[in-house]
């Protein structure tokens, strides 16, 4: 998958000034653009402390001395490099395609665009492709060669198998020792409680979690009419139903599932965003990366 193929040029142009910011301080050993939990020399003033022998005299705040005859040193927040992990749900349900683009294709495009953005701003990005098990996991790293590797992995993975995101997140949580960003791109057609438990675990691990919930328009509108023999994408079997008669209840169930997921995520400080697989990628990314999302509580 080439960069140009993965992310259309126009999208890149529109996202040129968009950066990904970690909503919480991340731990990194490298100086990057993101807030670090450590305070020190940095371009961003964080406050004063009394001068101690050995401090750099360049950081003495002479204005404070002039006013108060007190020797105070300026303290700065140190920005570190972001470590993000993009989890792409590659289960069978992601293969559903009603408008010429499947949910998985949309997810891949989003993942590729995110990876490019992060690499370009010097962050480290990793990738995890999963279905009922973790297929492939690439640790976060930087550089174009790493990006190409990620894109290659995305290209190779197709939708198959069943969904079990909860267990995947639990497994990933064990590997995420440092603070970072976790972006889950999935249709979330999984056990809600199990999923939430896993997400809470990630939050406990001080991860900044964002969920991009992808829905196919047909999954929302249920435009089918008459009798249909519905065949599951993940081998659930077949169901005969009069679409006209089940539509209302189905939509109600679907709506309840999404709203409860959203509410639960909000309570946990997780950004939950729903988008449609036929939506514009740039707009979706803008919404995802927008700073208007509710901030996570400081830790």
């Amino acid at each position, binding site marked *: 998958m080439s960069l140009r193929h993965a992310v259309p040029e126009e999208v890149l142009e529109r996202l040129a000034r968009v950066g990904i910011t970690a909503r919480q301080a991340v731990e990194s050993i490298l100086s990057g653009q993101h807030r670090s939990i450590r305070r020190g020399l940095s371009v961003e003033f964080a406050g004063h402390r009394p001068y101690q022998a050995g401090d750099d005299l360049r950081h003495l705040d002479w204005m404070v001395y002039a006013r108060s005859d007190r020797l105070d040193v300026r303290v700065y927040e140190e920005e570190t490099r972001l470590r993000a992990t993009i989890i792409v749900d590659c289960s*069978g*349900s*992601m*293969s*559903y395609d009603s408008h010429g683009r499947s*949910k998985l294709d949309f997810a891949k495009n989003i993942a590729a665009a995110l990876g490019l953005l992060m690499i370009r701003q010097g962050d480290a990005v990793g990738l995890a492709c999963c279905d009922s098990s973790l297929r492939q996991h690439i640790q976060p790293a930087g550089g174009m060669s790493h990006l190409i590797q990620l894109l290659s992995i995305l290209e190779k993975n197709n939708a198959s198998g069943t969904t079990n995101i909860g267990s995947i997140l639990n497994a990933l949580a064990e590997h995420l020792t440092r603070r970072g960003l976790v972006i889950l791109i999935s*249709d979330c*057609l999984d056990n809600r409680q199990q999923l939430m438990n896993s997400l809470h675990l990630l939050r406990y691990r001080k991860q900044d979690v964002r969920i991009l919930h992808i829905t*196919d*328009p*047909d*999954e*929302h*509108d249920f435009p*089918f009419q*008459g*009798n*249909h*023999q*519905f*065949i*599951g*994408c*993940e081998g*659930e*079997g077949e*169901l*005969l*139903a*009069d679409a*006209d*008669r*089940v*539509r*209302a*209840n*189905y*939509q*109600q*169930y*679907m*709506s309840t*599932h999404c709203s409860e997921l959203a509410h639960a995520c909000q309570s946990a400080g997780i950004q939950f965003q729903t988008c*449609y697989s036929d939506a514009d990628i740039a707009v979706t990314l803008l919404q995802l990366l927008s700073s208007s999302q509710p901030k996570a509580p400081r830790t």
Partner: protein
Amino acid sequence: MINFEALWMAGGFIAIGIPLLIHFLHRKRIRHTTFSAMQFLSDVLMQQQQRMRFNNILILVMRIACIFFLIAALCRPQWISQQLASGHIQRQGSCAALILIDDSASSRELMPFMKELTLAYMDTLKNGDEISIYSSSGAINTDPMYDLDAARTIIRTAKSYDTTSDIPQLLDHGLQNIRRHLNPEREIIIVSDGQLSAWHSDDEQRWQQLQTQCAQLHIRLIHLLAPRETTQNISLSHIYLKNHLFSVGQKNDVSIHIQSNESVIAVDTLLRVRKDGRIIDERIIHCNANEQQIISIPVQFNDAGSHHIDAELHGLHDAIQADNRRGISIVVNDHIPVLLVDSFAGEQSYYLKQALLSRSGEHSIFHVEHSDLAALHHKDLNAYKVIILTDIPALDHRHIAHLERYIVSGGSVLVSLGPHSDPDSMNTYWVRNGDGFLPAYVKKIRHAQAAWFDVVSRSQQHPALLSLPITDSVPFNSSFNSYYILHNDTFESADDSASVLMEFANGDPFLLERKRGEGRVLLCASSFDMQWGTLPQNPLFVPWIRGLCSYMASFLLPPRTIECGQSIAHPTPDVRSWRITDELHNTISSQLDRTQGRHILRSETITRAGVYSAHTDDAITYYVANINEQEYDAHSISTDLFQHMLTSSDTEHNNPIHMFHSVQDIIQAWNAQRGQDLAIWRYFIGACLLCLLIEASITHQVVMRERRLNASGADGEQR
């Protein structure tokens, strides 16, 4: 027992397959669709599937049931509650009943009971049986129908008329029409008063034909006989004029015959005679058993034109009331045109003319005109009531054709032979082997050798001879020395054979009469002058000639005294607005037609006795309708005679014959009680509607639920 009136509708049950077909076809149109969010679908279906399945099945069942009940209702099932098997008359299947009602004059008093018997018979019928009704007067004539209630209404409104009953003809009509019925069990029901004369039991040939027809058709014959409480009957049997011709101011006698049958026990009755509606005579008549009385009432008319006389017996409680009244229509003439034709300038007809014209001290009613043969061409013969040909040697073909037309259309001709008569010519052209107008062949002349031939009168009661004294073999006091021998042959083509009114003492006919068409011809074997006899010197000559001419001039065409069952035919001189009315001034339906160059106003069949009038603004003509003499008979037919007439000698083919006199007999025969048949089809219609209601209700509930859910789902989910 359930009976289906329209079982052929059961073919509609095939329509039950329509909802099933739609159901299965609908099921086949299933599309296979891959879907991702199966967990939500399965949750929904788990809840809805059972209810949906139940609703679908219920809707399908209701639709099938709706169609089933509708088709079943269209088959018109009836629950038959009658018990038909315990009477001695048993029907094996649906019945076709043809009711023949004798509504003649004699049944007037018994009509209510006849209707009661008929209704009791109809109670033995059940729904699905066919029935048709016909009456002897023709007033009721229905097609086969299944509506028994409508048939009962027809019976209840039936009434009697003054027509004549003819049971063989009634039965023949029934046998012709029973073939129009479809049901297998055929019955012919004769409802009558049992009047013996109506059955014409002496007409064996006719009854044999009827027996054969009955046997071929395998029908059950039923006679519902309304018995009379009494057979005592007094009838006004005849009313006629002694003299046929009425002239203005002339006194005439009306003879009224009153007949009592053998059952009459001395009874008094009031005879009332009316002239033009005004009572002219009333008298008490005492009647004994088996007696005929002739009452003579003098009448006189001062105005020329149409008049009527009717007589009525009052206060009688006899078997038949319809025969207690009778009438006659009279024409009072102020002149009778007579044409005398001879060939010798009036010499042969001189005495005739004098006899007709002169009447001492009185104005003669006869207007006599003389003509010779040459002038006969130019005469309008229809302007004369009587034409007398005296001693005519020959007539050319135009004269003959002219005369024959005149006679056939109602004219009267008196022909006298004489010395100048040419027998050969007469036989060839006037007789023509019966096709001509002369009633008999003229043979040779018989000349007297010594004593002359005396004439005696034979038919004293003949209206032409009423002027002569009524005694047996009274000499006519006229002798003839010569006369032509007439051969009174029966011609094959003749309407009627000639009758001898007077004859010579040796038996040779003197005066013959023969009807031709509407008219008549009288032929005298000798002359009316002194050439061959002393006839003009006979004191009876004048009344005799006047009587003959009166007789010949008295025939009214068309007749004005008719029988019920005939129609009034009134010749109108023009096409002015004539109408015919009854005694109550109700207009009788009539139509105008043209016959033999004349306009005739012809009425519908007259079914009520009484006086009718054809009138316009300034003219009126009276017609009188009387009942037929046959209706005077108060004797009833016996069961044995009834059986005999309807039983064929070939016993293998005889149909069951039954006769009932009372309602109880009928009920006992069929053991029929007026059953409460249940019209099940109504309940089926109700069930059909109920199923339709349930189906609509379920469908409505499902639709409303889906709409609510769709609305709530649309509200809840906004993209």
